[in-house]
């Protein structure tokens, strides 16, 4: 059965270069996954695991150099069928040593122009994105309503000023903003974080995109507001059914909204599959990191049972000093003698442990 996925990312590599350390920061180090139409993919991982950079790479918004250096991003929606990284090879030359990229030659300016050409028709219209920090993500010099209306007038048939305003108000109501008419003329400064995020959601969805990327939509908001925004997103998901890539390190949010989940660690996907399966990882199943992550979420037994919080020992992975073997090796509590040698020296590929469910771990086979 092959309904082509709406979004298919293959072997995406996005690197940055640190002048001070004279080395690459391998933020996204060969990431692949796909999202079916109507599905919500939750992308989980710690800060620095590469989740946001993946999203920015899809949108073509990676600013620093060298940026995207390899991969293919297939977007297939009604009317649009393209590789968002088309002709990347024409702009980039890579040199490897020991299976690792050590030199990049990239026409940064030319590639940027190419990206604008590829993404120009796509951004805002077929693909929309909402960000963390909604307050700083809105233009402080314009009223909130005008910013929403701008998006509407750009990407929908509602081109006139009055029409744009009406549609904006409709969407402000839809995102359950209180007093939409008043809020329309407010500046972001006058709105709370939660309200700004509602406005951002309105701005993104009002153009009826086929694909939405939500980058940490609730992080940074007050705890009570977080759940309200989560409610909003759930409601919109069931109403509109927009294909979504939801990035968060809030497992609860992911659990609530995702159909499938990709777990990222150290710039790579370490587990990927249906949400229920992935989020059921435990001491015997799934990727050790996923299991540890899930176990670290404070729950009843910690609060009432007064059990200590389960932290993951060790440090956040270094994306500059990238090890040869499994990136979780060293913090993994499930290493056995049988696989230790592989774990230490060889990077495990994604192994299928059930239909549609893959894990990057030597414990599940391989050599």
């Amino acid at each position: 059965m092959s309904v082509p996925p709406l979004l298919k990312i293959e072997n995406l590599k996005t690197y940055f270069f640190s002048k001070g350390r004279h080395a690459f920061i391998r933020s996204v180090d060969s990431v692949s996954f796909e999202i079916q139409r109507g599905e919500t993919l939750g992308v989980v991982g710690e800060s620095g695991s590469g989740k946001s950079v993946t999203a920015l790479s899809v949108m073509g918004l990676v600013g620093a150099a060298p940026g995207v250096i390899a991969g293919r991003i297939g977007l297939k929606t009604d009317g649009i069928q393209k590789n968002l990284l088309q002709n990347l090879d024409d702009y980039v030359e890579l040199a490897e040593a020991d299976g690792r990229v050590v030199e990049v030659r990239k026409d940064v300016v030319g590639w940027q122009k190419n990206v604008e050409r590829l993404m120009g028709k796509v951004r805002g219209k077929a693909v929309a994105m909402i960000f963390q920090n909604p307050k700083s993500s809105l233009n402080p010099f314009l009223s909130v309503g005008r910013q929403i209306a701008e998006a509407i007038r750009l990407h929908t048939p509602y081109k006139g000023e009055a029409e744009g305003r009406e549609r904006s108000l409709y969407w402000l109501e839809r995102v359950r903003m209180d007093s939409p008419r008043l809020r329309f003329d407010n500046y972001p400064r006058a709105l709370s974080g939660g309200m700004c995020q509602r406005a951002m959601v309105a701005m993104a969805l009002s153009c009826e995109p086929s694909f939405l990327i939500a980058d940490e939509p609730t992080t940074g908001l007050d705890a009570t507001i977080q759940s309200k925004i989560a409610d909003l997103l759930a409601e919109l998901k069931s109403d509109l059914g927009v294909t979504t890539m939801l990035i968060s390190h809030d497992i609860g949010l992911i659990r609530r909204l995702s159909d499938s989940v990709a777990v990222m660690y150290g710039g790579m996907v370490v587990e990927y599959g249906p949400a229920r399966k992935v989020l059921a990882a435990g001491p015997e199943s799934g990727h050790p990191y996923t299991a540890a992550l899930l176990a670290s979420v404070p729950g009843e037994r910690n609060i009432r049972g007064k059990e200590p919080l389960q932290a993951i020992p060790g440090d956040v992975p270094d994306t500059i000093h990238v090890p040869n073997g499994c990136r979780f090796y060293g913090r993994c509590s499930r290493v056995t003698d049988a696989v230790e040698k592989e774990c230490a020296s060889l990077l495990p590929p994604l192994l299928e442990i059930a239909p549609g469910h893959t894990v990057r771990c030597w414990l599940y086979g391989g050599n």
Partner: protein
Amino acid sequence: MRKRYVQAPGENGDSSGLRFFRKADAVDLLFVGYGLLIVALVAASYVAGVFRLLPHDPEALDLDLLLAPPGTAGHLLGTDFMGRDIFARLILGIQAYFLPGLLAIAVAIVPGAALGVLAGYREGRADTVITWFSNLVDSFPRLVLILLVVAAFKPDIYYIMVVAGLTNVPAAVSLVKGKIRFLKEKNFIEAAEGLGLPRRTIVLKHILWHHCRASLIIRATLGMGEAILVETSLSYLGFGVQEPTPSWGNMVQSGANYFLQGNFWPSTVPALAILLAILGFHLLGDGLNNLLERKAAY
């Protein structure tokens, strides 16, 4: 045009030592290098001038060799309209701005830092008043204010430089104030006070020495550049150092008529000296600023 990014093969990153230089743009190091060279030359020439270690007698008139271009026998940089050696006069001309410039810098920075601390630390009314005074001083174009003072007192170059220094106080004030605001935002000051550190220590050691020192030094180098500009402009106009004492400014002025007749060098040599010197101080200031203040990411 492709940019090239190379990571040394076999290693996974660099260790600190060289990191400073790696992080620094070659450009900034160049700027600082050139700037330091100029500072060295100026200082050395000043000393040479004081001890009269000159290539030629600056007052000797060589009536056969008027307006000679550079390279003429015995006169490396040529002679002026009275046959005097330009090189020697150039060296002497440094005395016109060197010490006065240092005075201007001191006058700008010492009260400036003090007021900046008052305004930034105390805030409230002290801040409002000091800001008002800063804006007041800033309302005058420096040269116009100096002309006013000249008309009133006909003072010598040192007093004029004091005035010039005073016009730079607002810049020093806002610099220190800005630093303090930054430190307050990061709660450094609150933390220091919470630890029970005496106020004087907080201000002198922590704020001024650790955090402001680099910026103030940078301000000082830029201030010297400004001092050169002020002094040479003033002597060009005829107000600063008077003939026959040489100043780079009055040397350009005296050569001006001859310039228009085609004798470029008597005017151009001191003008180039002004250019190279001011450029040196500017580049030094900007280079140091980029190296020390702009902590680039990573």
